[in-house]
């Protein structure tokens, strides 16, 4: 008996355990194996990614019209594939991909498509046969936002993490995004988010991370936000940095003051210890 006479179920299972590197070598074993590699699923990989970037090393300084090459790098498993983002090179990659597997699964897959001039359809063609559990989307421009919407539409059953890094969408755009497993808003120097927008964001997304930004919110609205999070059936954790006067206003409204004794319970709060700012500073110093 020869290996290719083994049950189809077994051969497919075997090919799901092969690393990409060995699939490439198996292509060279025999004609039948070359076909088997092409016709079988590559199995599951915990993580993968596709990035675009400009390669400035390709600039010919003697040529004033020379530009940095637009590059695509795709990583899965133990392999990465880097190529110039041109239609004919993409066709070569797609041909190779079609000879390497019929499908592939990823636990998570990152999209960092920072070169706007590379059409999103390039990426969509590359990941066409992919099954992706979780998409990580990095956004720096409005084009990236539109591209991300297309990718989300291509993977409607996946979960998503969005990183707003250099670009803050308009409120309407922000609120029209689908629910994210994680929404990271880390855009520097942007106007404050309104309380109303903030309420909608914490309701929509499981994890909302606002960094280097602020929310225009008074203590009553902050309290409302905390109540919304507490009432949410999803597992939620809130970590907020609040201006001192906002927090004081909230605590006073709950009946807490400087003279409140430790172990006093006031509505939703239990006072563990009552320290002056000087005592707190000394404690911090001791802990350093």
């Amino acid at each position, binding site marked *: 008996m020869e290996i290719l*006479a*083994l*049950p189809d*179920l077994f051969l497919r*299972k075997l090919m799901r355990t092969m690393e990409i590197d*060995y699939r490439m070598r198996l292509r060279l074993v025999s*004609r039948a194996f070359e076909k088997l590699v092409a016709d079988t699923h590559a199995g599951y*990989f915990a993580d993968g990614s596709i990035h675009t970037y400009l390669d400035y090393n390709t600039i010919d300084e003697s040529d004033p019209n020379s530009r940095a090459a637009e590059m695509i790098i795709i990583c899965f498993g133990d392999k990465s594939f880097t190529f110039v983002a041109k239609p004919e090179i993409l066709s070569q990659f797609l041909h*190779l991909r079609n000879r390497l597997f019929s499908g592939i699964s990823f*636990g998570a897959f990152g999209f960092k498509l920072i070169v706007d001039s590379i059409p999103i359809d390039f990426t969509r063609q590359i990941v066409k046969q992919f099954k992706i559990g979780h998409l990580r989307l990095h956004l720096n421009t409005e084009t990236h936002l539109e591209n991300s919407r297309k990718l989300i539409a291509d993977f409607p059953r996946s979960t998503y993490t969005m990183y707003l890094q250099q670009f803050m969408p308009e409120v309407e755009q922000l609120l029209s995004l689908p629910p994210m497993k994680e929404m990271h808003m880390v855009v520097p120097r942007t106007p404050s988010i309104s309380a109303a927008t903030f309420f909608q964001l914490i309701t929509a997304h499981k994890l909302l991370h606002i960094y280097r930004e602020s929310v225009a919110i008074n203590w009553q609205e902050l309290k409302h936000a905390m109540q919304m999070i507490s009432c949410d059936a999803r597992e939620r954790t809130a970590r907020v940095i609040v201006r001192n006067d906002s927090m004081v206003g909230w605590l006073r409204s709950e009946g807490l003051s400087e003279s409140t004794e430790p172990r006093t319970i006031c509505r939703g709060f239990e006072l563990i210890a009552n320290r002056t700012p000087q005592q707190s500073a000394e404690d911090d110093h001791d802990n350093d």
Partner: protein
Amino acid sequence: RIYPLMRVTLTTSDGASVTVSRQLTKHSGFIEKAITDMAVDDNAVPLSAVAVDVDDATLKLVIEWLTEHRDDALPYPEKTDEERRADDIPAWDQAFVQKWDTKEDQQQTLYAVITAADKLDIKGLLDMTCKTLANKINGKTVEEMREILQLECDFTEEELAEIRKENAWCEN
């Protein structure tokens, strides 16, 4: 409900008969279905034997594996979308397969057990043999792969060059 004392008689493709405990055969989807189809009382020994399309020598190996794994949990967990792993073969299973190295044609024994595991629908044994073969192939050169898989290269030099060119392109 499975009655572990119940015995099942298996007749092999080369005419031998082996009687085994239901505690072992419960891991075989094929045998379980055959018993169900007979509609016999689970307390009784089936009057008809279950015919399995496996030779006597291979069935003995399968039964040896089933005996070791008689207490494995059922149903066998499906792992289609989990992390690929071939390095988690239990020590007993590794030793079980290594014993075949002394046989004249170890690869044929492995293939026979794989085929039997598929026919008898024993998912755990199929998984183990799959990982065993994957471990043999992984890390090997193309020539070594051909030797392990007992395959001749049937490409022309031009075809090989073309595939190498494609592979080399994606490594750049």
